[in-house]
Protein backbone atom coordinates (compact mmCIF):
# COMPACT_ATOMS: atom_id res chain seq x y z
CA UNK A 1 0.00 0.00 0.00
CA UNK A 2 2.75 2.43 0.97
CA UNK A 3 4.55 1.40 -2.12
CA UNK A 4 1.63 2.48 -4.27
CA UNK A 5 1.30 5.83 -2.52
CA UNK A 6 4.99 6.37 -2.84
CA UNK A 7 4.85 5.56 -6.52
CA UNK A 8 1.93 7.92 -7.07
CA UNK A 9 3.74 10.70 -5.23
CA UNK A 10 6.90 10.01 -7.13
CA UNK A 11 5.02 9.98 -10.38
CA UNK A 12 3.35 13.30 -9.63
CA UNK A 13 6.61 14.79 -8.49
CA UNK A 14 8.48 13.69 -11.55
CA UNK A 15 5.67 14.92 -13.74
CA UNK A 16 6.04 18.44 -12.41
CA UNK A 17 9.70 18.67 -11.60
CA UNK A 18 10.86 17.25 -14.89
CA UNK A 19 9.37 18.91 -17.92
CA UNK A 20 9.97 15.90 -20.11
CA UNK A 21 11.90 15.06 -23.22
CA UNK A 22 10.26 17.88 -25.14
CA UNK A 23 11.79 20.56 -22.96
CA UNK A 24 14.83 20.34 -25.18
CA UNK A 25 13.08 22.43 -27.77
CA UNK A 26 14.85 25.78 -27.70
CA UNK A 27 12.26 28.35 -28.57
CA UNK A 28 13.76 31.24 -26.70
CA UNK A 29 14.28 34.80 -27.76
CA UNK A 30 16.74 33.65 -30.37
CA UNK A 31 14.18 31.70 -32.33
CA UNK A 32 11.57 34.41 -32.07
CA UNK A 33 14.09 36.84 -33.48
CA UNK A 34 15.02 34.40 -36.16
CA UNK A 35 11.43 33.99 -37.23
CA UNK A 36 10.74 37.70 -37.35
CA UNK A 37 13.92 38.48 -39.25
CA UNK A 38 12.91 36.41 -42.23
CA UNK A 39 9.28 37.05 -42.98
CA UNK A 40 7.68 34.65 -45.40
CA UNK A 41 4.21 34.57 -46.81
CA UNK A 42 3.35 31.71 -44.57
CA UNK A 43 4.53 33.19 -41.34
CA UNK A 44 4.67 36.93 -41.56
CA UNK A 45 4.15 37.51 -37.89
CA UNK A 46 5.37 34.67 -35.77
CA UNK A 47 4.03 34.84 -32.27
CA UNK A 48 4.88 33.09 -29.09
CA UNK A 49 1.60 31.24 -29.69
CA UNK A 50 2.98 29.47 -32.73
CA UNK A 51 6.01 28.44 -30.72
CA UNK A 52 3.88 27.03 -27.93
CA UNK A 53 1.77 25.28 -30.52
CA UNK A 54 4.74 23.64 -32.15
CA UNK A 55 6.09 22.56 -28.81
CA UNK A 56 2.79 20.86 -28.22
CA UNK A 57 2.87 19.15 -31.58
CA UNK A 58 6.20 17.66 -30.59
CA UNK A 59 4.36 15.65 -27.98
CA UNK A 60 3.42 12.38 -29.71
CA UNK A 61 0.06 12.44 -27.94
CA UNK A 62 -0.86 15.47 -30.03
CA UNK A 63 0.52 14.09 -33.25
CA UNK A 64 -1.93 12.92 -35.88
CA UNK A 65 0.52 10.53 -37.43
CA UNK A 66 2.79 9.25 -34.70
CA UNK A 67 0.70 6.31 -33.57
CA UNK A 68 0.43 4.80 -37.06
CA UNK A 69 4.05 5.54 -37.74
CA UNK A 70 5.10 3.83 -34.53
CA UNK A 71 2.99 0.77 -35.23
CA UNK A 72 4.23 0.51 -38.77
CA UNK A 73 7.93 1.08 -38.27
CA UNK A 74 8.71 0.26 -34.65
CA UNK A 75 6.19 -2.55 -34.41
CA UNK A 76 2.75 -2.90 -32.78
CA UNK A 77 2.92 -2.82 -28.98
CA UNK A 78 6.50 -1.62 -29.17
CA UNK A 79 8.07 -0.57 -25.90
CA UNK A 80 8.71 3.12 -26.55
CA UNK A 81 10.43 5.69 -24.33
CA UNK A 82 10.78 9.35 -25.23
CA UNK A 83 14.10 10.57 -23.87
CA UNK A 84 16.06 13.79 -23.86
CA UNK A 85 19.61 12.47 -24.03
CA UNK A 86 19.37 11.48 -27.68
CA UNK A 87 20.07 14.89 -29.19
CA UNK A 88 19.20 16.12 -32.65
CA UNK A 89 21.63 18.84 -33.62
CA UNK A 90 20.10 20.95 -36.37
CA UNK A 91 18.62 24.38 -36.93
CA UNK A 92 15.25 25.25 -35.42
CA UNK A 93 14.30 27.23 -38.47
CA UNK A 94 15.12 25.91 -41.93
CA UNK A 95 15.69 28.16 -44.94
CA UNK A 96 16.86 25.55 -47.45
CA UNK A 97 14.48 22.65 -47.00
CA UNK A 98 15.89 20.42 -49.70
CA UNK A 99 19.23 19.92 -47.99
CA UNK A 100 19.11 20.06 -44.20
CA UNK A 101 22.17 18.86 -42.32
CA UNK A 102 21.59 17.16 -38.98
CA UNK A 103 23.49 15.13 -36.44
CA UNK A 104 22.12 12.73 -33.83
CA UNK A 105 24.30 12.19 -30.77
CA UNK A 106 23.76 9.18 -28.54
CA UNK A 107 24.46 8.88 -24.82
CA UNK A 108 27.14 6.39 -23.84
CA UNK A 109 24.71 3.79 -22.48
CA UNK A 110 23.00 3.37 -25.82
CA UNK A 111 25.92 3.49 -28.23
CA UNK A 112 25.75 -0.26 -28.56
CA UNK A 113 22.35 -0.59 -30.18
CA UNK A 114 20.47 -2.86 -32.55
CA UNK A 115 18.82 -0.44 -34.92
CA UNK A 116 18.54 3.27 -35.67
CA UNK A 117 15.66 4.89 -37.58
CA UNK A 118 15.26 8.56 -38.47
CA UNK A 119 11.69 9.77 -39.05
CA UNK A 120 10.24 13.04 -40.29
CA UNK A 121 6.56 13.02 -39.34
CA UNK A 122 5.17 15.53 -41.82
CA UNK A 123 7.10 14.39 -44.86
CA UNK A 124 5.52 12.52 -47.74
CA UNK A 125 8.45 10.15 -47.28
CA UNK A 126 8.61 9.83 -43.52
CA UNK A 127 11.43 7.36 -43.07
CA UNK A 128 14.87 8.70 -43.91
CA UNK A 129 17.19 5.85 -43.00
CA UNK A 130 17.23 2.63 -41.06
CA UNK A 131 20.66 1.55 -39.86
CA UNK A 132 21.88 -1.71 -38.39
CA UNK A 133 25.30 -1.31 -36.76
CA UNK A 134 27.98 -3.94 -36.21
CA UNK A 135 29.98 -1.74 -33.84
CA UNK A 136 29.34 1.00 -31.29
CA UNK A 137 28.31 4.31 -32.82
CA UNK A 138 28.51 7.61 -30.93
CA UNK A 139 26.79 9.88 -33.42
CA UNK A 140 25.21 9.78 -36.88
CA UNK A 141 24.76 12.56 -39.39
CA UNK A 142 22.98 13.05 -42.70
CA UNK A 143 21.33 15.58 -45.02
CA UNK A 144 17.55 15.38 -45.29
CA UNK A 145 14.64 16.87 -47.19
CA UNK A 146 11.81 18.55 -45.29
CA UNK A 147 8.44 19.16 -46.86
CA UNK A 148 7.01 21.23 -44.01
CA UNK A 149 7.27 22.10 -40.32
CA UNK A 150 7.67 18.79 -38.57
CA UNK A 151 8.71 16.86 -35.51
CA UNK A 152 11.83 14.83 -36.28
CA UNK A 153 12.37 11.61 -34.34
CA UNK A 154 15.52 9.59 -33.91
CA UNK A 155 14.54 6.09 -32.75
CA UNK A 156 17.07 3.66 -31.27
CA UNK A 157 16.33 0.01 -30.57
CA UNK A 158 18.39 -1.54 -27.77
CA UNK A 159 19.21 -5.23 -27.39
CA UNK A 160 16.34 -5.75 -24.93
CA UNK A 161 13.78 -4.66 -27.53
CA UNK A 162 13.12 -1.15 -26.15
CA UNK A 163 12.88 1.87 -28.42
CA UNK A 164 14.38 5.15 -27.18
CA UNK A 165 13.31 8.24 -29.06
CA UNK A 166 14.88 11.69 -29.25
CA UNK A 167 12.72 14.41 -30.80
CA UNK A 168 13.04 17.90 -32.20
CA UNK A 169 10.56 20.30 -33.78
CA UNK A 170 11.76 22.27 -36.80
CA UNK A 171 10.16 25.00 -38.85
CA UNK A 172 10.49 25.30 -42.60
CA UNK A 173 10.55 28.78 -44.16
CA UNK A 174 9.49 27.80 -47.64
CA UNK A 175 7.81 24.45 -47.75
CA UNK A 176 8.40 21.83 -50.40
CA UNK A 177 11.82 20.31 -49.83
CA UNK A 178 10.52 17.05 -51.29
CA UNK A 179 8.66 18.52 -54.23
CA UNK A 180 11.06 21.14 -55.57
CA UNK A 181 14.15 20.38 -57.66
CA UNK A 182 17.19 19.53 -55.59
CA UNK A 183 19.40 22.24 -57.02
CA UNK A 184 18.46 25.88 -56.75
CA UNK A 185 20.10 27.93 -59.52
CA UNK A 186 19.55 31.13 -57.54
CA UNK A 187 22.20 30.05 -55.12
CA UNK A 188 24.30 27.36 -56.74
CA UNK A 189 25.61 26.13 -60.04
CA UNK A 190 23.43 23.19 -61.01
CA UNK A 191 25.76 20.83 -62.79
CA UNK A 192 24.84 17.21 -62.15
CA UNK A 193 27.75 14.96 -61.28
CA UNK A 194 28.37 11.35 -62.24
CA UNK A 195 25.79 9.14 -60.53
CA UNK A 196 27.34 6.71 -58.12
CA UNK A 197 30.56 8.58 -57.44
CA UNK A 198 31.49 7.80 -53.84
CA UNK A 199 33.83 9.77 -51.61
CA UNK A 200 34.86 8.18 -48.31
CA UNK A 201 36.77 10.27 -45.83
CA UNK A 202 38.11 9.41 -42.40
CA UNK A 203 38.82 12.05 -39.78
CA UNK A 204 40.62 11.68 -36.49
CA UNK A 205 38.70 12.68 -33.40
CA UNK A 206 39.78 12.85 -29.77
CA UNK A 207 41.29 9.80 -28.07
CA UNK A 208 41.57 7.58 -31.11
CA UNK A 209 37.94 8.10 -32.07
CA UNK A 210 37.00 8.54 -35.68
CA UNK A 211 34.49 10.18 -37.97
CA UNK A 212 33.63 8.48 -41.23
CA UNK A 213 32.05 10.63 -43.88
CA UNK A 214 30.47 9.22 -47.03
CA UNK A 215 29.29 11.32 -49.90
CA UNK A 216 27.51 9.67 -52.80
CA UNK A 217 26.64 11.54 -55.98
CA UNK A 218 23.03 10.61 -56.68
CA UNK A 219 19.87 12.57 -57.65
CA UNK A 220 17.73 10.84 -54.97
CA UNK A 221 14.57 11.68 -56.93
CA UNK A 222 11.51 11.64 -54.70
CA UNK A 223 8.93 11.16 -57.46
CA UNK A 224 7.23 14.40 -56.36
CA UNK A 225 9.19 16.81 -58.54
CA UNK A 226 7.68 18.11 -61.77
CA UNK A 227 10.08 19.18 -64.52
CA UNK A 228 9.75 22.26 -66.76
CA UNK A 229 7.48 20.39 -69.20
CA UNK A 230 5.10 19.38 -66.42
CA UNK A 231 6.27 15.77 -66.40
CA UNK A 232 6.78 14.04 -63.09
CA UNK A 233 10.38 12.97 -62.61
CA UNK A 234 10.13 9.31 -61.52
CA UNK A 235 11.55 8.30 -58.15
CA UNK A 236 15.12 7.11 -58.23
CA UNK A 237 17.11 6.77 -55.05
CA UNK A 238 19.76 4.84 -53.17
CA UNK A 239 18.31 1.84 -51.34
CA UNK A 240 21.22 0.23 -49.55
CA UNK A 241 24.58 1.33 -48.26
CA UNK A 242 26.98 -1.17 -46.80
CA UNK A 243 29.98 0.17 -44.87
CA UNK A 244 32.89 -2.04 -43.84
CA UNK A 245 36.63 -2.08 -43.25
CA UNK A 246 39.40 -4.66 -42.86
CA UNK A 247 37.88 -5.89 -39.59
CA UNK A 248 34.47 -6.60 -41.13
CA UNK A 249 31.14 -4.81 -41.47
CA UNK A 250 30.52 -1.47 -39.75
CA UNK A 251 26.89 -0.79 -40.71
CA UNK A 252 24.10 -1.73 -43.09
CA UNK A 253 21.93 1.22 -44.03
CA UNK A 254 18.58 1.18 -45.81
CA UNK A 255 17.92 4.60 -47.31
CA UNK A 256 14.92 6.45 -48.75
CA UNK A 257 14.40 9.51 -50.94
CA UNK A 258 13.91 11.70 -47.87
CA UNK A 259 17.70 11.87 -47.89
CA UNK A 260 18.89 14.83 -49.94
CA UNK A 261 20.41 14.55 -53.36
CA UNK A 262 24.11 13.69 -53.18
CA UNK A 263 23.59 12.32 -49.68
CA UNK A 264 26.18 12.68 -46.98
CA UNK A 265 26.33 10.15 -44.11
CA UNK A 266 28.46 10.70 -41.02
CA UNK A 267 29.32 7.97 -38.54
CA UNK A 268 31.26 8.72 -35.36
CA UNK A 269 32.95 5.59 -34.05
CA UNK A 270 34.76 5.35 -30.72
CA UNK A 271 37.52 3.38 -32.41
CA UNK A 272 39.32 3.99 -35.64
CA UNK A 273 38.25 1.94 -38.66
CA UNK A 274 40.87 0.48 -40.99
CA UNK A 275 40.51 1.49 -44.66
CA UNK A 276 36.78 2.06 -44.74
CA UNK A 277 34.92 0.88 -47.84
CA UNK A 278 31.42 1.50 -49.15
CA UNK A 279 29.10 -0.50 -51.38
CA UNK A 280 25.90 1.15 -52.64
CA UNK A 281 22.80 -0.17 -54.45
CA UNK A 282 20.09 2.06 -55.91
CA UNK A 283 16.43 1.58 -56.87
CA UNK A 284 17.32 0.71 -60.45
CA UNK A 285 19.53 -2.07 -59.17
CA UNK A 286 22.75 -0.29 -60.05
CA UNK A 287 25.67 -0.98 -57.75
CA UNK A 288 28.51 1.35 -56.90
CA UNK A 289 31.72 0.71 -55.01
CA UNK A 290 34.17 3.01 -53.31
CA UNK A 291 36.83 0.42 -54.10
CA UNK A 292 37.79 -1.74 -57.03
CA UNK A 293 35.36 -4.62 -57.16
CA UNK A 294 36.46 -7.65 -59.14
CA UNK A 295 33.36 -9.80 -58.95
CA UNK A 296 30.84 -7.26 -60.25
CA UNK A 297 27.34 -8.68 -60.35
Amino acid at each position, binding site marked *: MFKVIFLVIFFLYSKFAYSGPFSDFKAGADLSEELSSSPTERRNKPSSDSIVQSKESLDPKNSAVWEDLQNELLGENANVFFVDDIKLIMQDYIEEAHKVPLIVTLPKKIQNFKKFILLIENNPIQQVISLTPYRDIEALGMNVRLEDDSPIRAAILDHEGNWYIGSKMVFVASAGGCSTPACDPA*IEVCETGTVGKIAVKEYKREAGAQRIKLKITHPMETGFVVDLDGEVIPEYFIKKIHVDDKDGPIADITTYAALSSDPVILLDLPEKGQSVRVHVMDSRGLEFFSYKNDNTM
Partner: protein
Amino acid sequence: MQYFKNIVFLLVLFNSFQAFSESIYNLTPIEVSKNVYVFFGDVNNLNNVNGGAISNTGFIIGKKSILVIDAGPSYLYASRVIEIIKSYSSLPIKHLIVTHHHPDHSFGISKFIEIGANVIMSQAEINMYFKYGNRLLRQVKKSIGDNWFINTKIVKFGNNEEFPLNLDLGGRKVSIELYNQGHSEGDLVIEDLLSKIIFVGDLVFNERAPTIPHANITNWNKYISDIKNRKWDYIVPGHGELIKIKEQLLLTKYWINYIDKTAKQAVLNGTSPAEIFNEGIPASLRKYKLAKETWIRDLPLLINKYESE
Protein backbone atom coordinates in the same frame (compact mmCIF):
# COMPACT_ATOMS: atom_id res chain seq x y z
CA MET B 1 -33.54 48.66 -54.95
CA GLN B 2 -31.84 46.71 -52.23
CA TYR B 3 -30.64 44.35 -54.92
CA PHE B 4 -28.89 47.17 -56.79
CA LYS B 5 -27.37 48.49 -53.62
CA ASN B 6 -25.91 45.09 -53.02
CA ILE B 7 -24.45 44.93 -56.50
CA VAL B 8 -22.93 48.39 -56.19
CA PHE B 9 -21.49 47.41 -52.86
CA LEU B 10 -19.97 44.28 -54.36
CA LEU B 11 -18.53 46.21 -57.28
CA VAL B 12 -16.92 48.73 -54.98
CA LEU B 13 -15.58 45.95 -52.83
CA PHE B 14 -14.20 44.14 -55.86
CA ASN B 15 -12.52 47.26 -57.17
CA SER B 16 -10.97 48.17 -53.88
CA PHE B 17 -9.66 44.65 -53.59
CA GLN B 18 -8.11 44.98 -57.04
CA ALA B 19 -6.41 48.20 -56.01
CA PHE B 20 -5.16 46.58 -52.87
CA SER B 21 -3.71 43.57 -54.63
CA GLU B 22 -2.02 45.60 -57.37
CA SER B 23 1.75 45.41 -57.32
CA ILE B 24 3.25 48.86 -57.21
CA TYR B 25 6.91 49.77 -56.88
CA ASN B 26 7.43 52.94 -54.90
CA LEU B 27 10.62 54.25 -56.43
CA THR B 28 12.41 57.54 -55.97
CA PRO B 29 15.82 58.10 -57.53
CA ILE B 30 18.53 59.87 -55.55
CA GLU B 31 20.85 62.22 -57.44
CA VAL B 32 24.30 61.17 -56.23
CA SER B 33 26.10 63.56 -58.60
CA LYS B 34 24.92 65.87 -61.34
CA ASN B 35 22.91 63.75 -63.78
CA VAL B 36 23.83 60.52 -62.02
CA TYR B 37 20.92 58.87 -60.20
CA VAL B 38 20.41 55.74 -58.12
CA PHE B 39 17.25 53.90 -57.10
CA PHE B 40 18.41 52.28 -53.86
CA GLY B 41 16.90 48.84 -53.26
CA ASP B 42 15.17 47.60 -50.14
CA VAL B 43 17.54 46.18 -47.52
CA ASN B 44 15.39 43.09 -46.87
CA ASN B 45 15.27 39.86 -48.77
CA LEU B 46 12.88 39.75 -51.68
CA ASN B 47 9.35 39.64 -50.32
CA ASN B 48 5.79 40.35 -51.36
CA VAL B 49 6.01 43.97 -50.21
CA ASN B 50 9.17 45.08 -52.03
CA GLY B 51 8.39 42.99 -55.11
CA GLY B 52 12.02 41.90 -55.33
CA ALA B 53 13.37 45.45 -55.65
CA ILE B 54 16.33 44.82 -53.38
CA SER B 55 19.26 45.81 -55.59
CA ASN B 56 20.41 49.23 -56.74
CA THR B 57 19.56 50.54 -60.21
CA GLY B 58 21.37 53.56 -61.64
CA PHE B 59 21.06 55.90 -64.58
CA ILE B 60 23.43 58.41 -66.13
CA ILE B 61 22.20 61.24 -68.35
CA GLY B 62 24.57 62.53 -71.06
CA LYS B 63 23.95 65.25 -73.63
CA LYS B 64 22.72 62.80 -76.25
CA SER B 65 21.58 59.66 -74.49
CA ILE B 66 20.93 57.91 -71.22
CA LEU B 67 22.57 54.76 -69.85
CA VAL B 68 20.87 52.55 -67.25
CA ILE B 69 22.69 50.19 -64.91
CA ASP B 70 20.78 47.00 -64.04
CA ALA B 71 17.26 46.12 -65.07
CA GLY B 72 15.77 45.31 -61.67
CA PRO B 73 13.65 42.31 -60.71
CA SER B 74 10.72 42.50 -63.15
CA TYR B 75 9.05 43.98 -66.18
CA LEU B 76 6.87 46.15 -63.92
CA TYR B 77 9.91 47.49 -62.11
CA ALA B 78 11.71 48.30 -65.37
CA SER B 79 8.56 50.01 -66.71
CA ARG B 80 8.35 52.18 -63.61
CA VAL B 81 12.05 53.06 -63.81
CA ILE B 82 11.74 54.05 -67.47
CA GLU B 83 8.67 56.15 -66.71
CA ILE B 84 10.54 58.02 -63.99
CA ILE B 85 13.65 58.52 -66.15
CA LYS B 86 11.42 60.06 -68.84
CA SER B 87 10.20 62.61 -66.33
CA TYR B 88 13.83 63.70 -65.81
CA SER B 89 14.94 63.79 -69.44
CA SER B 90 13.49 63.32 -72.89
CA LEU B 91 16.73 61.85 -74.29
CA PRO B 92 16.61 58.22 -75.46
CA ILE B 93 17.63 55.37 -73.15
CA LYS B 94 20.26 53.93 -75.43
CA HIS B 95 22.14 51.45 -73.22
CA LEU B 96 21.25 49.03 -70.47
CA ILE B 97 24.20 47.48 -68.67
CA VAL B 98 23.34 44.36 -66.69
CA THR B 99 26.07 43.67 -64.14
CA HIS B 100 25.19 39.94 -63.80
CA HIS B 101 22.35 37.43 -64.24
CA HIS B 102 20.81 37.24 -60.76
CA PRO B 103 17.02 37.86 -60.92
CA ASP B 104 17.04 41.06 -58.89
CA HIS B 105 19.37 42.63 -61.47
CA SER B 106 18.26 41.07 -64.74
CA PHE B 107 14.54 40.29 -64.88
CA GLY B 108 13.59 43.73 -66.20
CA ILE B 109 15.61 43.19 -69.38
CA SER B 110 12.65 42.45 -71.68
CA LYS B 111 11.13 45.89 -71.03
CA PHE B 112 14.38 47.62 -72.03
CA ILE B 113 14.54 45.58 -75.22
CA GLU B 114 10.96 46.64 -75.94
CA ILE B 115 11.98 50.32 -75.89
CA GLY B 116 14.95 49.62 -78.14
CA ALA B 117 17.80 49.88 -75.61
CA ASN B 118 21.03 48.06 -76.38
CA VAL B 119 21.54 45.45 -73.65
CA ILE B 120 25.13 44.84 -72.56
CA MET B 121 26.04 41.89 -70.34
CA SER B 122 29.07 39.62 -70.18
CA GLN B 123 28.78 36.52 -72.36
CA ALA B 124 29.27 34.19 -69.40
CA GLU B 125 26.37 35.80 -67.55
CA ILE B 126 24.14 35.85 -70.65
CA ASN B 127 24.67 32.10 -70.77
CA MET B 128 23.61 31.75 -67.12
CA TYR B 129 20.59 34.00 -67.74
CA PHE B 130 19.44 31.84 -70.67
CA LYS B 131 20.20 28.58 -68.93
CA TYR B 132 18.58 29.22 -65.57
CA GLY B 133 16.32 32.22 -66.27
CA ASN B 134 13.02 30.41 -66.65
CA ARG B 135 13.61 28.21 -63.65
CA LEU B 136 14.55 31.22 -61.55
CA LEU B 137 11.50 33.09 -62.77
CA ARG B 138 9.23 30.24 -61.67
CA GLN B 139 10.96 30.28 -58.34
CA VAL B 140 10.63 34.00 -57.62
CA LYS B 141 6.99 33.87 -58.73
CA LYS B 142 6.39 31.09 -56.26
CA SER B 143 8.12 32.88 -53.43
CA ILE B 144 6.68 36.41 -53.73
CA GLY B 145 3.66 36.05 -56.02
CA ASP B 146 2.89 36.02 -59.76
CA ASN B 147 1.42 39.51 -59.71
CA TRP B 148 4.87 41.11 -59.45
CA PHE B 149 6.01 39.35 -62.60
CA ILE B 150 3.28 40.19 -65.10
CA ASN B 151 4.92 40.35 -68.57
CA THR B 152 8.31 39.40 -67.16
CA LYS B 153 10.02 37.16 -69.69
CA ILE B 154 13.40 35.65 -70.29
CA VAL B 155 14.31 36.95 -73.73
CA LYS B 156 17.05 36.11 -76.17
CA PHE B 157 19.41 38.90 -77.14
CA GLY B 158 22.78 39.05 -78.79
CA ASN B 159 25.96 40.46 -77.41
CA ASN B 160 29.15 41.01 -79.31
CA GLU B 161 30.82 43.44 -76.98
CA GLU B 162 34.48 43.33 -76.11
CA PHE B 163 35.59 44.63 -72.73
CA PRO B 164 36.78 47.13 -71.67
CA LEU B 165 34.12 48.99 -73.56
CA ASN B 166 33.93 52.77 -73.85
CA LEU B 167 30.64 54.52 -74.49
CA ASP B 168 29.93 58.18 -75.16
CA LEU B 169 26.59 59.50 -73.93
CA GLY B 170 27.35 62.92 -75.42
CA GLY B 171 29.92 64.94 -73.50
CA ARG B 172 30.06 62.15 -71.00
CA LYS B 173 32.23 59.07 -71.29
CA VAL B 174 31.52 55.82 -69.54
CA SER B 175 33.87 52.84 -69.36
CA ILE B 176 32.73 49.28 -68.73
CA GLU B 177 35.10 46.60 -67.49
CA LEU B 178 34.66 42.89 -67.08
CA TYR B 179 35.67 41.29 -63.77
CA ASN B 180 35.70 37.65 -64.72
CA GLN B 181 34.86 34.88 -62.20
CA GLY B 182 34.59 37.01 -59.10
CA HIS B 183 31.20 37.32 -57.43
CA SER B 184 29.58 35.80 -60.54
CA GLU B 185 30.89 34.31 -63.77
CA GLY B 186 31.43 37.77 -65.20
CA ASP B 187 30.48 40.96 -63.38
CA LEU B 188 30.48 44.25 -65.23
CA VAL B 189 31.82 47.38 -63.52
CA ILE B 190 30.74 50.75 -64.89
CA GLU B 191 32.64 53.97 -64.34
CA ASP B 192 31.31 57.40 -65.14
CA LEU B 193 34.50 59.33 -65.84
CA LEU B 194 32.97 62.78 -65.33
CA SER B 195 31.62 62.22 -61.82
CA LYS B 196 34.21 59.60 -60.83
CA ILE B 197 31.42 57.31 -59.67
CA ILE B 198 31.85 53.57 -60.11
CA PHE B 199 28.92 51.14 -60.22
CA VAL B 200 30.35 47.83 -59.07
CA GLY B 201 27.28 45.58 -59.02
CA ASP B 202 27.40 42.76 -56.49
CA LEU B 203 31.19 42.78 -56.25
CA VAL B 204 30.44 45.00 -53.27
CA PHE B 205 27.63 44.78 -50.73
CA ASN B 206 27.39 47.63 -48.27
CA GLU B 207 26.56 46.53 -44.70
CA ARG B 208 24.60 43.60 -46.03
CA ALA B 209 25.89 40.03 -46.06
CA PRO B 210 27.33 39.28 -49.51
CA THR B 211 26.02 36.21 -51.32
CA ILE B 212 28.72 33.86 -52.46
CA PRO B 213 27.19 30.88 -54.30
CA HIS B 214 28.56 31.54 -57.77
CA ALA B 215 31.72 33.11 -56.47
CA ASN B 216 35.42 32.55 -56.76
CA ILE B 217 36.64 33.98 -53.44
CA THR B 218 40.29 34.43 -54.46
CA ASN B 219 39.43 36.49 -57.52
CA TRP B 220 36.74 38.37 -55.70
CA ASN B 221 39.25 39.46 -53.05
CA LYS B 222 41.60 40.68 -55.72
CA TYR B 223 38.82 42.60 -57.41
CA ILE B 224 37.80 44.40 -54.22
CA SER B 225 41.41 45.47 -53.68
CA ASP B 226 41.52 46.60 -57.27
CA ILE B 227 38.33 48.62 -56.86
CA LYS B 228 39.68 50.08 -53.62
CA ASN B 229 42.79 51.32 -55.41
CA ARG B 230 41.01 52.91 -58.32
CA LYS B 231 40.37 56.63 -58.22
CA TRP B 232 36.79 57.38 -57.32
CA ASP B 233 34.59 59.78 -55.43
CA TYR B 234 31.76 57.38 -54.76
CA ILE B 235 31.01 53.73 -55.29
CA VAL B 236 27.51 52.43 -55.92
CA PRO B 237 27.34 48.87 -54.55
CA GLY B 238 24.90 46.25 -55.84
CA HIS B 239 23.10 46.35 -52.49
CA GLY B 240 23.17 48.93 -49.70
CA GLU B 241 23.98 52.59 -49.43
CA LEU B 242 26.43 54.74 -51.38
CA ILE B 243 30.06 54.13 -50.45
CA LYS B 244 32.15 57.20 -49.71
CA ILE B 245 35.17 55.83 -47.89
CA LYS B 246 37.47 52.93 -48.73
CA GLU B 247 37.00 51.16 -45.40
CA GLN B 248 33.41 50.38 -46.32
CA LEU B 249 34.70 48.06 -49.03
CA LEU B 250 36.39 45.91 -46.42
CA LEU B 251 33.06 44.72 -45.03
CA THR B 252 32.47 42.62 -48.13
CA LYS B 253 36.00 41.30 -47.95
CA TYR B 254 35.74 40.40 -44.30
CA TRP B 255 32.57 38.38 -44.80
CA ILE B 256 33.68 36.43 -47.85
CA ASN B 257 37.01 35.55 -46.27
CA TYR B 258 35.41 34.54 -42.99
CA ILE B 259 32.86 32.22 -44.57
CA ASP B 260 35.49 30.86 -46.95
CA LYS B 261 37.85 30.03 -44.09
CA THR B 262 35.06 28.43 -42.06
CA ALA B 263 34.04 26.25 -45.01
CA LYS B 264 37.60 25.14 -45.73
CA GLN B 265 38.14 24.33 -42.06
CA ALA B 266 34.94 22.27 -42.02
CA VAL B 267 36.06 20.28 -45.05
CA LEU B 268 39.41 19.65 -43.41
CA ASN B 269 37.88 18.41 -40.14
CA GLY B 270 34.81 16.70 -41.54
CA THR B 271 32.55 19.02 -39.55
CA SER B 272 28.87 19.06 -40.45
CA PRO B 273 27.19 22.42 -41.12
CA ALA B 274 24.71 21.34 -38.41
CA GLU B 275 27.52 21.50 -35.86
CA ILE B 276 28.69 24.90 -37.07
CA PHE B 277 25.16 26.32 -36.98
CA ASN B 278 24.76 24.96 -33.48
CA GLU B 279 27.44 27.45 -32.39
CA GLY B 280 25.32 30.36 -33.63
CA ILE B 281 26.33 33.15 -35.98
CA PRO B 282 29.87 34.38 -35.26
CA ALA B 283 29.69 37.63 -33.26
CA SER B 284 31.69 39.62 -35.79
CA LEU B 285 29.19 38.80 -38.55
CA ARG B 286 26.03 39.67 -36.67
CA LYS B 287 26.14 43.35 -37.61
CA TYR B 288 25.55 42.58 -41.29
CA LYS B 289 22.00 42.78 -42.55
CA LEU B 290 20.57 39.35 -43.45
CA ALA B 291 23.54 37.77 -41.67
CA LYS B 292 21.71 34.73 -40.37
CA GLU B 293 19.89 33.87 -43.59
CA THR B 294 23.00 34.29 -45.69
CA TRP B 295 25.29 32.39 -43.33
CA ILE B 296 22.91 29.45 -43.08
CA ARG B 297 22.22 29.38 -46.81
CA ASP B 298 25.75 29.85 -48.12
CA LEU B 299 27.96 27.90 -45.75
CA PRO B 300 26.72 24.39 -46.72
CA LEU B 301 26.98 25.33 -50.40
CA LEU B 302 30.54 26.45 -49.99
CA ILE B 303 31.44 23.33 -47.98
CA ASN B 304 29.84 21.22 -50.68
CA LYS B 305 31.80 23.05 -53.35
CA TYR B 306 35.15 22.55 -51.63
CA GLU B 307 34.32 18.92 -50.88
CA SER B 308 33.77 18.26 -54.54
CA GLU B 309 37.06 19.82 -55.55
